[in-house]
């Protein structure tokens, strides 16, 4: 009896080992370069709602039917999960599986690049006919994200910050749309008014975001005085911070600004408490719904330098993908082809393809038009190990202390420098 049992156990173990050694890549089966057989590409993406999900499936189907390389893309939706999407992707890739291509966030690039999971796209982009259809600045942003001179990430669509303003308030205060940084600061002053005559300010010039996420509009002030994000301690960067503090000290922004987040700045703008605020196209439909024609936009004006923050969604090709040529065809279709057009029309995101940007549907949308104008000087914050904590804790706390007068602009910038770069 014992012998039979031992024999059975050994047999099962052998069977498992044999089956285990037999590698089956059913999740991304790629079939060489034989053109009569389909080249299968698995693409992972997240969608904000079922309509977007259905659109991506339709884009994949259209691509499958229209490409002449017999490439068959299987689009697989994965939950965004508050950014957990990237972790799922990482686990799958480290487990030897995962997709051939995937929708992407730039912040994940260093981790995946450090583990050699991403394909370098330089040679593909150099040979690509549509290379110049994408703003060269975007390629630079992609390089910055990877921390090298190589491109690992293919641009797809963006959300570029700009200034929302209330034309009626500009008219009442006799203010023209600012075209320079100085004019913008002046507009903040002029638009701050007591409209009811009770001696109290009821309209503030600018809706400042002092809570988490506020570093994005804040960056534009730093560049406005000629500073940049590589060194916060320069005289120019400190001067930009001083402007930011002055807006609060002089009462041109609501007194709640140090703790105001996304919801507050949008609500203040919609209710008429502020005359200007900074956000991207994602909030435009809500603005129009609340304010009708009494909302417009302009790019954050240029000072000594011009910069605005950019939200991003890209695509990547994984190193383990056997048919990178086919995978590139797919991500190129999403970047400059019909896929780009369809996706941006549905989601309202800003296209990266100049051809698509020039389409009447995008040009006729005033918010889209301003977003597109901002693309050449849009950028991102440095992606470092410290970035997440810097954004969520260090920037809001330090800025709040500076606004409250507990720190000078120079001290605050020194602290921000230390928090992000360590020195």
């Amino acid at each position, binding site marked *: 009896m014992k012998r039979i049992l031992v024999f059975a156990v050994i047999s099962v173990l052998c069977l498992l080992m044999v089956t285990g050694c*037999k590698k089956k890549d059913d*999740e991304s089966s790629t079939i060489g370069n034989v053109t009569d057989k389909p080249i299968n590409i698995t693409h992972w993406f997240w969608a*904000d*709602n*079922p309509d977007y999900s259905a659109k991506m499936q339709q884009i994949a189907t259209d691509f499958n039917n229209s490409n002449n390389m017999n490439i068959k893309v299987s689009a697989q939706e994965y*939950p965004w999960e508050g950014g957990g999407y990237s972790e799922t992707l990482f686990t799958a890739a480290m*487990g*030897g599986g995962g997709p051939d291509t995937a929708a992407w966030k730039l912040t994940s690039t260093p981790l995946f690049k450090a583990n050699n999971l991403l394909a370098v796209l330089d040679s593909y982009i150099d040979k690509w006919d549509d290379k110049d259809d994408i703003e060269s600045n975007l390629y630079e942003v992609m390089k910055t994200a990877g921390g090298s001179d190589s491109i690992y990430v293919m641009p797809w669509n963006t959300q570029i910050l700009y200034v929302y303003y209330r034309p009626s308030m500009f008219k009442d205060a006799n203010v023209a749309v600012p075209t320079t940084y100085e004019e913008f600061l002046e507009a903040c002053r002029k638009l701050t008014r007591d409209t009811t005559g009770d001696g109290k300010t009821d309209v503030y010039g600018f809706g400042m975001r002092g809570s988490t996420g506020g570093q994005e509009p804040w960056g534009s002030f730093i560049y406005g005085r000629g500073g940049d994000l590589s060194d916060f301690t320069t005289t120019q960067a400190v001067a930009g911070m001083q402007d930011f503090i002055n807006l609060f000290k002089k009462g041109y922004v609501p007194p709640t600004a140090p703790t105001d987040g996304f919801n507050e700045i949008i609500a203040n703008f919609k209710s008429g408490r502020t005359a200007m605020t900074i956000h991207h196209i994602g909030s435009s439909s809500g603005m129009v719904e609340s304010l009708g024609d009494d909302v417009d936009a302009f790019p954050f004006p240029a000072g000594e330098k011009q910069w605005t923050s950019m939200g991003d969604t890209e695509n990547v090709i994984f190193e383990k993908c056997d048919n990178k040529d086919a995978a590139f065809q797919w991500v190129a279709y999403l970047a400059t082809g019909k896929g780009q057009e369809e996706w941006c029309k549905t989601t309202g995101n800003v296209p990266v393809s100049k051809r698509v940007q020039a389409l009447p549907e995008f040009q006729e949308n005033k918010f889209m038009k301003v977003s597109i104008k901002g693309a050449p000087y849009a950028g991102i914050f440095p992606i470092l190990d410290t970035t997440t904590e810097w954004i969520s804790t260090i920037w809001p706390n330090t800025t709040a202390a500076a606004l409250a007068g507990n720190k000078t602009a120079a001290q605050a910038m020194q602290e921000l420098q230390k928090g992000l770069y360590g020195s």
Partner: protein
Amino acid sequence: MERKQSALSRFLFLYLPLTLILLFLLFPFYWTFVTSIKPEQELYGRVVTYWPRSVTFSAYKSLFLDYNFLHPMGNSFLVALITTLLTLFVSSLASYSFSRFRFRGRKAFMILFLTNNMFPTVLLLIPLYAIMRNLGILYTPLALVLSYTTFTIPFSVWLLNGYLSDLPMSLEEAGMVDGANRAQAFTRIILPVLVPCLIATGVYIFMTSWNEYTFAVMFTNERSRTIPVSLKNLIGQLGVQWDLLTAGGIITIIPVCVLFFFAQKRLVEGLTAGAVKG
């Protein structure tokens, strides 16, 4: 006077706390349901309403017609059912062996079973993913069944072992004296007595498999998605489909409620069985 005081104290110390606890427990379900039947303008409107001004079931319609929710429901049901049956089959035999036979390594195996549940599931994700991939079962329901049973079998063995150890050996011995062999004694004598405990264990396994997310998101794709992943897909980066999400949530708890309804009596018997050692 005494009766009045007694009624007051019953109200203050029994019914009032009970009502408050019930409110606390049931309000999330109520709110989920109310959200699922609110029209869009009311759902995203500025005024919070505790009962919709106009009731609509469009979210439920959209969930099944546009979102194809039946597909993940079918997958979830399949995975949960197979996991339950497989776990009950394996663990009832295993626990019978552990309770009735004394063999070398018995204690070591029992402890080994427990250690399995001590590891956080996230720690096992990458190894399990690689194993499923190499076995060629990744993105099939079998991958989920295997990974779930990895955790449910040890737990069930311990649960059933406690109950079986309480059953006197004389039960089977009597049957065996009358001519039954070991297998017959197990199936005809022990198994019927074990039913309440099997139901309790089965309900636990079914619910665990039905609601599991971490493995489900890794080991399934569009074809084999289960309910928790499908519902999570409705929470996007820039927005949440509250109507569909809450409608899906309500639909998801229905099978569990039905299961409880039928198994309630046996479930209580099963959960308390083995708790008192004689």
